[in-house]
């Protein structure tokens, strides 16, 4: 068994594991991580996991994810795990789950939806199906499928 780690352990921060292969770059976008982000971020793509499946891993130092960020993550990576690391130890481990309703996570794809007008309103979506991911706007009823969701990821 290969003992050598591809990326060294982080002291404090978050490790997002079991991401579907190819989704790591979307995750960075969702979390607003780019060249101006001040902390160290490690991205590992297409590694073979213990279950022999190919996966991506993202390690972010000195940052814990907010519930909104976890919700957004769930849209593209249901089943991923979020490990909170403190002093090199995993102190919390959560599986990303898709909530029944997503509030203030995405914009509705319908340009004529009230949530896309100049109104004091927070967009929200009911999860119609988790696999494949299908959301329905609770205001205008528009269906958002995987492609429309990915456009905003």
């Amino acid at each position, binding site marked *: 068994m290969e003992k050598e780690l591809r990326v060294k352990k982080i002291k404090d921060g978050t490790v997002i594991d079991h991401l579907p292969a190819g989704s790591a770059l979307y995750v960075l976008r969702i979390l607003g991580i780019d060249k101006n982000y001040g902390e160290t971020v490690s991205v590992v793509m297409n590694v073979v996991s213990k279950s022999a499946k190919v996966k991506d891993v993202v390690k972010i130092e000195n940052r814990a994810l907010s519930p909104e960020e976890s919700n957004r993550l769930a849209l593209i990576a249901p089943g991923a795990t979020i490990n909170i690391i403190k002093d090199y130890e995993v102190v919390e481990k959560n599986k990303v789950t898709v909530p029944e309703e997503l509030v203030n996570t995405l914009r*509705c794809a*319908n340009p*004529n*939806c*009230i*949530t896309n*007008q*100049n*109104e*004091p*309103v927070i967009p929200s979506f009911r999860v119609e199906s988790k696999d494949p991911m299908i959301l329905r*706007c*609770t*205001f*205008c*009823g*528009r*269906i958002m499928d995987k492609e429309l969701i990915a456009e905003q990821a």
Partner: protein
Amino acid sequence: MDLKGQDIISLERLSDEEIEYILKKAEGHEASLRKGGSALCKGKVLASLFFEPSTRTRLSFESAMHRLGGGVLGFAEAKGTSTSKGENLADSIRTVESYCDVIAMRHPVEGSAKLAAQVSNVPIINGGDGAHSHPTQTLLDLYTIRKEFGKLKGLKVALTGDLKYGRTVHSLSKALARFGADMIFASPDELRMPKDITSKLQGKYGVNVEEKAGLVDVVKDVDVLYVTRIQKERFPDPEEYEKVKGAYRVDNELLANAKKGMVVMHPLPRVYEITQEVDSTPYARYFQQAFNGVPVRMALIAAVLGVD
């Protein structure tokens, strides 16, 4: 059943029992209407906010409130209101709610009724929010069919015309399925009922749904023929439109083969899709359908005001 203070945003948000209750109450209001109305809403005010034009919906809401003995204020188009000066809907609603006890609203933007309900302290009745929902139309359609046949379950209803884009037929088909009516969808290929709706009707409610082209075979077999308009702009080729227009027109020749007791309905306005000769036949119900909008809206107004 207590609907006091409840918003009427879409039919999906009403339970079967609540829908039955409104339809039942509407029967009583129809009886009172024929004797000149009642005073159930004396001292109450309906704000009729129509941000886009409507004939039947607006006038029947206003008529309904008058027939209940209440007062009506409002506008028939956004022009001349604060909206034309740039005021958003939330502010308009917060202003108007202090002048009235209930708001009936039509607005061109989808989801506007839900937003209005979120900011308003008085009940909102959705009179149509863009392409999204028009629950009072569906309720009056259900009322009309039930009045005719005494039931909804087990009936066979054909929906024809623009089934792809038509808000009315989408909403009505779901409601009919909830109450156990089977359906035939008859439309040109370009304007077929969306697959997600068809499969939901069969899967969730277990009703029979058939799709057919043309009306000749359909009228022999159904209790209700619900006609909607096919819009010219849906067809890039004008010749194709002319062809389709003919195949989906309801006239006396077509009705010669109709099932005994069948009724023809239409949300109106009709243009060419039902010829005027049909108006005087025993099949025509579309003007009675428009009339039924009044008792149904009386029932809704009285129910959300808690005076029924």
